[in-house]
């Protein structure tokens, strides 16, 4: 309990929570604890020793505590949840919000990757189809060219045909044996 009183005194005096004149004259004995229970809860009053036995008004102490709540908490290594001042609800600190929400950034990154993939695949597909078309038109052009310069008989260029030698057609060659000889 003594440590609480000394800490409160340090807080109130160190951080100028009360007016300057009181600061010099305030001592540890000015903080009185009462109604201490097993639960580590108690009431305390801050007295003003310049004018004997008057207590600093509760509203002033409340305002001071409210303003410097986090300093009080850190001095005791406690938090808003573990150190409770009745009737002084803590003003909660808002969460830190960056200028652009984080999720939009991640969304943008993923979106760009996916779009790049799609464009790549589509372009590759178009290129493949163009190549196939080009190959087939090239083959057609080549055949046309051949026809102009080389005379063709039945699709076979004439040079390949040996018109003198000829080819024996095996189907009809065997017929000689079938027909009875005269």
């Amino acid at each position, binding site marked *: 309990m003594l440590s609480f009183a000394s800490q409160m005194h340090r807080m109130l005096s160190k951080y100028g929570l009360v007016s300057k004149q009181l600061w010099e004259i305030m001592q540890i004995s000015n903080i009185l604890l009462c109604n201490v229970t*097993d639960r580590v809860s108690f009431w305390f009053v801050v007295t003003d020793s310049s004018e004997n036995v008057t207590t600093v008004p509760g509203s002033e102490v409340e305002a001071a505590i409210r303003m410097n709540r986090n300093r009080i908490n850190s001095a005791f290594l406690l938090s808003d949840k573990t150190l409770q001042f009745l009737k002084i609800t803590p003003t909660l600190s808002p969460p830190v919000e960056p200028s652009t929400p984080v999720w939009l950034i991640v969304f943008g990154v993923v979106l760009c990757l996916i779009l790049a993939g799609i464009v790549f695949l589509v372009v590759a597909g178009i290129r493949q189809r163009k190549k196939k078309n080009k190959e087939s038109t090239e083959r057609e052009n080549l055949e046309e060219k051949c026809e102009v310069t080389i005379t063709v008989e039945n699709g076979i260029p004439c040079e390949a045909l040996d018109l003198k030698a000829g080819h024996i057609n095996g189907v009809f060659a065997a017929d000689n044996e079938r027909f009875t000889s005269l």
Partner: protein
Amino acid sequence: GFLIPYFIMLIAEGMPLLYLELAVGQRMRQGSIGAWKIISPYLCGVGVASVVVSFFLSMYYNVINAWAFWYLFHSFQDPLPWATCPLNSNRTGYDEECEKTSSTQYFWYRQTLNISPSLEASGSVQWEQALCLTLAWLVVYLCILRGTASTGKVVYVTASLPYCVLIIYLIRGLTLHGAVNGLIYMFTPKLEQLSNPKAWISAATQIFFSLGLGFGSLIAFASYNESSNNCERHAVIVSLINSTTSIFASIVTFSIYGFKATFNYESCLNKVILLLMNTFDLEEGSLTADNLSEMKDYLMATHPQEYAQLSPQLKNCSLEAELDTAVQGTGLAFIVYSEAIKNMEVPQLYSVLYFVMLLMLGIGSMLGNTAAILTPLTDSRAIATRFPKEVISGAVCFINCVIGLIFTMEAGNYWFDIFNDYAATLSLLLIVLVETIAVCYIYGIRRFEKDLYTMIGRKPNWYWKLMWAFASPLLIISLFIFYLTDYILTGTLQYQAWDATQGQLVTKDYPGHALAVIGLLVAASTMCIPLGALVTFIRKRLKRESVSTTA
């Protein structure tokens, strides 16, 4: 407790029907519409019904991927946005709605969905959700762009990554405090649950969904197989792997669930202890979880008036009650897991892992669905010759994305639930029933046996034939009867709406136009089968008449 119906349904329905569909696809070598036309010209409606069901499914299923993307993008913050409530306007406390419910539920219902109080109040399209939905459809388009050949490569990633994440989660989950409670809850069979037909129905639909029966995607995929592929072995292996994965995943789920239930139970106890200590000014540490009940009785005896004043605020904390809060529905899956994740150490890592896994699973399912829709389109010569593959896939994705914007409106989650509950369940049962009867009795089971013999070199043994001819159709018919009697007994259909003032779900009746949409959904797919038969019949009649007139 769910395991017994699950296994029985797997052996009786899952494996035989999977084998059937794979064999049909492999033999006919065409997508679902063409394959059933070959079996019997009157059955072209079955294929069309499968495609319609797949179309409905792809419309609404990608919204889940959009939500998974949303949660994934929000996992890169510290602290996680669903871990704490936002502050109200004058910063004296937390937001009102968030106080009444938990922060994870608030994040889901208010910040993700921005849900309206009822189905009639449609509200506007949420642009953030619309963006995520567009991204989800772009990802699907990227994967199906080049046709099924490229989809096969993507599936290597989408199928193997969830296993890695599941293993990580298994190790993490089993080491969590209170995980054992969840596992005990999962493995203790509850006999009164077994007698409830709803458990059996949900086991059957679970098997159908996870194996993908009746959607036509199996037939489509099997048609790309070689004719000599041993589909019997594949069917058995696939169903076994599927069920082991399901059990593995449910071990992970229940261990995390046990952790969440234990955590909530202990924080409930702590709140009660704090309240008692503050009121009676007791020493710190005098009240613990073990002596709480004795201390309560003691306090009630010594300070009866103050205790009586306090008793409405004292909640009876029970671990069983926490475990019993039913885990079902897609929204609940997001809520339960995000709540469990926020209490772990390094929650960002686990959150990212979990939602990436969810995405992989969801995109894998979407690929199967879109393949089921695209294969008939690319098979039909009328469309395939005029437009290249990329344009057809792009058109399908675009149309689905535009329709899916309905689910991003404020009332979108209610429409999502309608689609989720009614688009696929009844139609799938009917399609699968017609498939089995068609193959066994119309095509002839002896002919089918001979086909299998030519394909894989072995005739199916008595087990398969028994299942195809008798057990599976009987089971499905009994499921149908249960569904219909359940609907007739309960009367009108109802849905759960989020009430922002109370911070919880309330039950409401569906309005007229919603009932009409439900009827349309069910009719659109089921009517295809008789309509297809009718159209073929009329065509044959006309042909016969024209032939007879010309002759």
